[in-house]
């Protein structure tokens, strides 16, 4: 029941997203001049307006847009003259690989860092972890990406600085995208662990004579998992934003770079498809988090 509600909510949000995507063409005023290629004469513009149905009432246009959008039809790309959605979907796997690798990096860094910091509260390990977390939260993707290129591609020549052919070309972009989330998640895990560790039942566990590590892993971690998973779900949007920047620096063939290239050509159908796909990923990730909730906390499933 809970999951069904969330699913319905997700569909409604997606409907809202398509409204925003539709409205994009009206932001700059005249949709015909936004949508038409850059070098259009006034006479051609008039013909374009009629051909595209832009002279119809806005509600009619919206319903027509929706009817096509549910079938994944966002019109033709201006530059490649193929279906815009297809052009974006072609680049989707590369972006999913990048964000997936970034999530992996964030988790591999955040979980040990948060655990170490909480278990050594107010000692030097804690301070060092907090320092790195602050740094990771503040460094822009483009700066970290550049420093990584300088050190590992230009200096040490260990890893490629661009491209998307092998798993090696995934490492540097994934680190630049994931660093922010790693920092946020490490801070959150630390503070929620500290909160849990001050609870009564933890003291009981200690009083039973359990070792510190057992208490943290068996009792505290499970209860700190809920806010952690929530935050992980919220990070998906940041990861996709970061991927747009990282794909540009590392010349990585994902859909973010495609969208940035589409801007200079005013390829609006491609941009609309890109926004929609990004939103679908965020909504799907949130549904997945809801699913995880019911696994972690049985109370949610029952309510």
């Amino acid at each position, binding site marked *: 029941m809970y999951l069904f509600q969330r699913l319905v909510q997700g569909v409604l949000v997606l409907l809202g997203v398509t409204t925003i995507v539709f409205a994009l063409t009206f932001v700059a005023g005249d949709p015909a001049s936004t949508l038409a290629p850059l070098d259009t004469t006034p006479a051609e513009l008039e013909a374009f307006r009629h051909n595209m149905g832009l002279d119809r009432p806005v509600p009619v246009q919206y319903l027509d847009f929706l009817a096509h959008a549910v079938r994944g039809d966002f019109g033709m790309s201006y530059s490649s003259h193929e279906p815009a959605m297809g052009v974006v979907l072609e680049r989707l796997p590369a972006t999913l690989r990048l964000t997936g690798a970034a999530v992996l990096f964030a988790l591999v860094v955040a979980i040990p860092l948060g655990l170490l910091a909480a278990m050594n509260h107010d000692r030097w390990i804690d301070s060092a972890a907090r320092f790195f977390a602050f740094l990771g939260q503040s460094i822009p993707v483009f700066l970290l990406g*550049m420093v990584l290129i300088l050190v590992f591609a230009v200096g040490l020549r260990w890893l490629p600085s661009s491209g998307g052919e092998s798993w090696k070309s995934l490492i540097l972009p994934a680190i630049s995208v994931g660093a922010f989330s790693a920092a946020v998640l490490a801070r959150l895990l630390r503070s929620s662990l500290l909160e849990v560790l001050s609870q009564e039942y933890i003291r009981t566990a200690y009083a039973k004579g359990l070792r510190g590590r057992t208490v943290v892993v068996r009792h505290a971690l499970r209860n700190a998992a809920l806010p952690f998973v929530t935050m992980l779900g919220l990070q998906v949007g940041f990861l996709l934003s970061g991927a747009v920047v990282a794909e540009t620096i590392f010349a990585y063939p994902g859909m973010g770079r495609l969208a940035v290239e589409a801007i200079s050509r005013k390829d609006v159908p491609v941009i609309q498809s890109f926004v929609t796909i990004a939103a679908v990923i965020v909504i799907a990730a949130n549904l997945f988090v809801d699913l995880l909730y019911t696994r972690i906390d049985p109370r949610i499933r029952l309510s």
Partner: protein
Amino acid sequence: MRRRVGSRLPSGPALFGIAILTALVVAALFADLIAPAPDTQQLFDRLDAPSWAGGAHGHLLGTDSLGRDLLARVVHGARVSLTVGLVGVALSGGVGITLGLIAGYLGRRWDRIIMRVADVQQAIPALVLAVAVAAVLKPSIANLIVVLAVTTWFTFARVVRSEVLSLREMLFVESARVVGADDARIIGRHILPNAAASIIVIATLMVGNLILFEASLSFLGVGVPLTTPTWGRMVFDGIEYVATAWWIALFPGLAVMLTVLATNLVGDWLRDALDPRQRRR
């Protein structure tokens, strides 16, 4: 209901943050005195290293590919970043606080509409939406600020709404209503002052977020006109020279990082000092 405002003095990290933000404001205000002529091209000084790293022409942070002094450009870039950060927060906060008050105070239909719109916007990654809107708008700082406000208002709205929802039920608001205070007075005298702490914290963190946001957008070449000296644009211009002239991209990038770091440190300290309920250890 009085919180112990200002009962905690800034610690080391917070002082560091305040110092950086102060330096930034000074740099923006007196940019022309500190390092004049950010656009002057000295073609004989092209790609000159910083003076302390072997540069021949005495530029403290070196020069870029057109021989422009990087120190002057970074200092002038502070103007754009601060303008975007401060005006953007004023606009985003103004819209978000108003809508949050409406949603929380009037409730019912208004609450549902505003929160649904916030849900929808939250499903679109901020930078993705900003890139899309910037693509159909003409590049200008004013447009960019509007885009940033449009993509971030709901953070303020959510915080203010939840503050209003809890404050509305408080006894002192109830008693104010009983003695005949109207809605405007209740909001102005009782609700806003008590929500101020959270708003200040969010606003501080948001200044850094918007500056980072602006830098990312101008790095991608959208938002700000290409001729405006922004930190993000400078990094982009420098990145093709990164292997040989690392300073061109590094210093503006560091400027962004230090600014964001500073607002994060100050924001964190403010949260602890102003808002004991959200205190982090």
